């Protein structure tokens, strides 16, 4: 039982990491980057390809993955998303969704649809007192906590982070205040790419490297964000932990329910508090 809860907490940490990386772009420019999952998938496959087919040492493969991810993410913004500025929510949403499909299909074309595991996945498990934890899960949880603290400080105390929040609120106002909107949005995409690499390596170690990683964002990160509240960084962490624990407990007691639980959790929260646990209610004006 204790094992299950600890595993759930660690899983929740991974989900929170996913959701945080995704939410940077959203907080900076109100763009829901639904292609984020496909980005993660491509980065994970890149790392796998360099470490197993090319035969690079594992540190080099991870480094290459990080570099590739931080380049890929702003390129996506530069080629596609920039052209959609000022469009309604719907077309941006469909565009990023299709972009995700495109990237995923290209990934399948290049690497095939098989699942692989990293050669550098640490084996065995750590024993902390009576509780056993898989090392990859523990790393993931620690990384998620670190990212959480960094982002919390970033959006609350740094000039760039505060600027991003204004940009999200209103492009025109931000520009007239002397904020470089374009540059800030680029920075947010670079940061999001960096976190995508984190998520890709960690999830590649805890699960496998598969094309199904594309659905991580839709299936896990989105429910986490909505449960916690879209603009709330602490809310994301809370949502991630709640969903992670609920999912592992549900899977422990009822076989096969673990895929359903994040969605049910989200539906219930949206019925009771549509703005999320720690979010703020939106005011509608004509």
């Amino acid at each position, binding site marked *: 039982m204790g094992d299950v809860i600890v595993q759930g907490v660690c899983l929740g940490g991974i989900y929170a990491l996913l959701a945080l990386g995704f939410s940077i772009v959203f907080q900076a420019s109100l763009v*829901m980057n639904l292609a984020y999952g496909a980005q993660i998938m491509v980065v994970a496959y890149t790392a796998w390809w360099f470490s197993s087919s090319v035969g690079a040492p594992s540190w080099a493969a991870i480094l290459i993955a990080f570099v590739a991810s931080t380049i890929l993410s702003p390129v996506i913004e530069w080629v*596609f998303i920039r*052209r*959609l500025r000022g*469009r309604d*929510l*719907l*077309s941006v*949403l*469909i*565009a990023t*969704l*299709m*972009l995700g*499909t*495109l990237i*995923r*299909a*290209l990934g*399948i*074309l*290049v*690497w*095939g*649809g098989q699942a692989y595991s990293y050669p550098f996945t640490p084996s065995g498990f750590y024993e902390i007192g009576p509780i056993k934890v898989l090392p990859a899960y523990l790393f993931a949880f620690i990384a998620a906590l670190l990212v959480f603290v960094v982002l919390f400080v970033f959006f609350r105390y740094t000039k760039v982070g505060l600027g991003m929040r204004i940009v999200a609120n209103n492009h025109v106002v931000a520009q007239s205040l002397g904020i470089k909107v374009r540059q800030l949005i680029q920075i947010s995409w670079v940061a999001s790419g960096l976190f995508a690499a984190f998520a890709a390596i960690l999830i590649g170690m805890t699960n496998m490297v598969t094309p199904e990683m594309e*659905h991580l964002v*839709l*299936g896990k990160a*989105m*429910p986490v964000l*909505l449960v916690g509240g*879209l603009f709330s960084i602490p809310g994301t962490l809370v949502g991630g932990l709640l969903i992670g624990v609920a999912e592992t407990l549900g899977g422990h007691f009822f076989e*096969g329910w673990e*895929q*359903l639980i994040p*969605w*049910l959790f*989200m*539906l219930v929260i*949206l*019925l009771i508090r*549509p703005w999320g646990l720690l979010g703020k209610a939106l005011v*509608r*004006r*004509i």
Partner: protein
Amino acid sequence: MELPFGVYNTSFKQDLAVVRTKTQWVMLILLVALAFFLPAVMPRDWLSWYTTAGIFIVAALGLHVLLGLGGQFSMCHSALMAVGAYAAGMLAGSHGFPAWLTLPLAGIAAGIMGMAFAIPAVRITGFYLVMVTMAAQFVIIWVIENLRSWTGGNIGMSVNKLIFFGDEVGKVGFCWVVVAVVVVCVILVKNIQRTNAGRRLLAMRDNEVAAEVMGINLFRTKILAFFIGCFFAGIAGWLWAYQVGYLNPAQFSFSLSMKFLGMLVVGGLGSTTGVVLGVFAIQLAEKSTDYVNPLLSDILPSEIAKNLGPSMALIIFALVVILFIILEPRGIYGRVQRIRLWLAMHPFSF
């Protein structure tokens, strides 16, 4: 809608007419006749392509009522199609209902399921609605997979052949059934836009708060939008069940829901003609992989060429939709309208 030159509306009745001039009537009748005639002369693989396109038109029309007219995003359209298909399969298979009776019942089953998921939609809009409908997609498919005693789970369920006056309906005959259903559905949707309920949908799409202030009951209008939209999905599910003859949860994937969205975007949001154009455009683009893949597999190295099958259709589909969103947001229909305007005005630019 632009009127041809020299034609003016002089009465309210003319103003309301969907088909206005004699030329339009002749063209329309010829088009419908062609649609009925084509299946008789088509080769086998194009016949099944044509039938599938017809089924997708029905489903996409439902999404058009929801999204194009009512402004309500739905990402669970293929799951509702599954509800209709399984309802038809179960009613006809284990309860012995005649197939023709299950057609409306399949629609109603999907409509009610859609209404159930629409209840949270009343309080939320935009992005949150996307998430609720996406949840609906996964929840419905999960339930179908896990209700093994009713639906056969992942193994699937076979559907009896369609019987018409004691004869089994063949491939061509079934294609005629699909074309007939498509024609009826297009007429229905064209007319929904002219009714009171249809105008309420449009008002809700354009500005929810303003519509509510004007005295439109948002709750009822949203529920109605979901019921009509999902009703069409259920009808499409019924057609699908009898076309494929074998149901499996994997057929109603999330990517199928996305495909319907893509069809609407490519055709042009908010136009019924655009739906038909969009479905044919996307289906043609995907069919083109049958001819492109052999060419590409000669050029590409063999490691990559073996993956062409599962990925090429998706790549072409996604590329087409992305290019349309970026370059022509009003879709094929918008482009056609502009070309017609240009032709009508020809020597002058406006």
